């Protein structure tokens, strides 16, 4: 039927060749648009997904390679390093301990909102102390080497009126690990009760 229609058009050779070239180009464009390009895109997406999977796999393999060392280090973390209650209660306990350790040195305390990082939470606080330097040093020592995991982000110390008197501003943060996630994954039924880590 197509042949009959084409013969009815009475095209010469040049027109037939032009028609053929046009038809070929159109057909090629359709094939490229509908099959080749989508297939190529799909292949690229597959390659990207495979590359992501390969990265994940390599990361997991690396983690497994250091698993024993991580486990042994993890076992050394004291029970107090874990989050056992809500952020508000954790923060409240931390501030209480600061208050008790600082005593009369404490001038001002400015807590920042708790930051939940998933595997752990951080509780940051800005403290202004004023007093003798040795008292401040003692406060820092007791706070840093106490049961809590505390880090110091920055400080500013300056002399004030009075012999050996100074004013010091600290920005500190306490870390509490998220026990449920780690414990569920690790398989140890460890909970902290009354400040004591209990393995069930």
């Amino acid at each position, binding site marked *: 039927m197509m042949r009959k229609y084409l013969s009815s058009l009475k095209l010469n050779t040049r027109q*037939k*060749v032009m028609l053929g070239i046009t038809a070929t180009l159109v057909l090629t464009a359709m094939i490229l648009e509908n099959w080749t390009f989508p297939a190529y895109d*799909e292949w690229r997406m597959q390659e990207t997904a*495979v590359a992501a999977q390969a990265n994940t796999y390599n990361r997991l393999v690396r983690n497994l390679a250091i698993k024993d060392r991580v486990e042994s280090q*993890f076992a050394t973390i004291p029970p107090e390093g874990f989050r056992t209650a809500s952020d508000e209660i954790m923060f409240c306990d931390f501030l209480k301990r600061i208050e008790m350790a600082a005593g009369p040195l404490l001038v001002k305390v400015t807590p920042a909102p708790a930051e939940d990082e998933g595997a752990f939470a951080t509780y940051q606080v800005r403290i202004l102390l004023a007093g003798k330097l040795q008292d401040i040093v003692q406060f820092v020592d007791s706070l840093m080497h106490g049961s809590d995991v505390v880090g110091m982000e920055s400080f500013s110390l300056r002399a004030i009126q009075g012999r050996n008197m100074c004013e010091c501003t600290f920005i500190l943060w306490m870390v509490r690990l998220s026990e449920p996630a*780690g414990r569920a994954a690790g398989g140890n039924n460890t909970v902290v009760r009354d400040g004591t880590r209990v393995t069930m």
Partner: protein
Amino acid sequence: MKRIPKWLKNIAGSMRDILSTSKTDAALGERNLLLCHWQKKEQLCVLHRAANGETQPIDCSSREVLSEGVERVGRALTVAILPKSEYLVKVIETPQVPTQEVFAMLRLEIEATLPPDTAEVDISYLQLPPSEGKEGRSKFEVYIARDETLQRLTNAMRGMGLEPDMILPSVVAWRGVFADQTETNMLVVELPDDEIETAVSQSDGGCHVRTIETSSLDRQATLPPGVLESIRSLLAHADPDQIQDIAWCGDRELPIDVGSIVQFRHTQKEFANETPGIAMLQLVSSGLGHISTMAMATSGLHLQGQEELRRRTLIMRRFAIGAAALFLGLVLIQTAIEIMIYRSEQVGLEFSERISHIQREGETSENRLTQLKAVAAAKERQNDFQDLLETLYEFTPGGISYSEISMNDEGQISVRGQALSMGEPFLLPNALDGRGPLTRVVVRSAQLSTTSRGTITEFKADMSLKRRGQ
């Protein structure tokens, strides 16, 4: 042997067409030839002429037998002889023109002289020496044949499995015979179709050819009337003192010499038993060695429509091959992509399976590592304050005191202090750098300041804290 597929033959044919050179490079007499004559009674005569001039008739009783004979011969140029009854001869004189424009000019001349309702014709020509007194002009013998005739001849030969490479007007062949047999003044050639072709060599280099229809009645006569007229024409222009030599190609009994003016003789008696067609081809064969390359190139008739069809077929074939190659390429690309997708999917599945086996333990380990890093980051900074104060206390030179010490989250420390003399602050880098956790100690500024107890030097210094865990 396995048959070659038709499409492969087409491609090979196309490539051969593209790559082949002209088949008429060598002189006709030096080629391996198949001389053909198609009779009106639809009988084909074929004579093989080897390059060394030896001839051998080929059996044409059937297509298969002919094919076998042609195969035995090997590659040969197929030349079909066109009898005079199928074409016209016209002598044209023109001003001198470049060789490449001769054909177009002659075609214009011929088309102008043909009646308007004449069918498509093809022409070929032979350049003759210029006439006496017309040295500045060119003289051509033009052969005119209808496309329909050439088409019929070509189709008939194709029907027998032969593809003509050249269609040669008989007059060109007779010119060759005259050049070969210089003593001959006239040729009388019996054709198988109750026809006689006479060729008279003229003193000015021309060749006058006639076709004479003979009936069965004439066949019994010794000298058909038409031949007699040709002899009269020969004698009219001949030297009366010279005996005219007439070569007779055919199996008739020769007439007696006429008054010692005309002398008859048979051409090539050894083939006297052959059919008239073969005998004629034998005669043609003897003259081919005298046809020049130029004459051969210009005098061969070509079927214009056939050439056009062949050209069109070639174009369409090339286009089809190109399109097929394009689509084949696309199919190959598509297939390659599909294979790559399949391969990627398989690799992805393999990774998924591997990941599912180690995901739980790996993520647990990663989670704990993250927690350990958080604890380590905190513990790393636990001693910054004490370490800094202890180092400053222990290694600060005498006479220097500090009024302000601050440390940012990156461990960069800046201090302000006082010294008793201007030079003392500049002892700090030497005294503190590398001591304990302190590095890169630099005094930024120092200036004298007056107090109630005299002058002191106020200075600023920066340093870095190297933490224990780093």
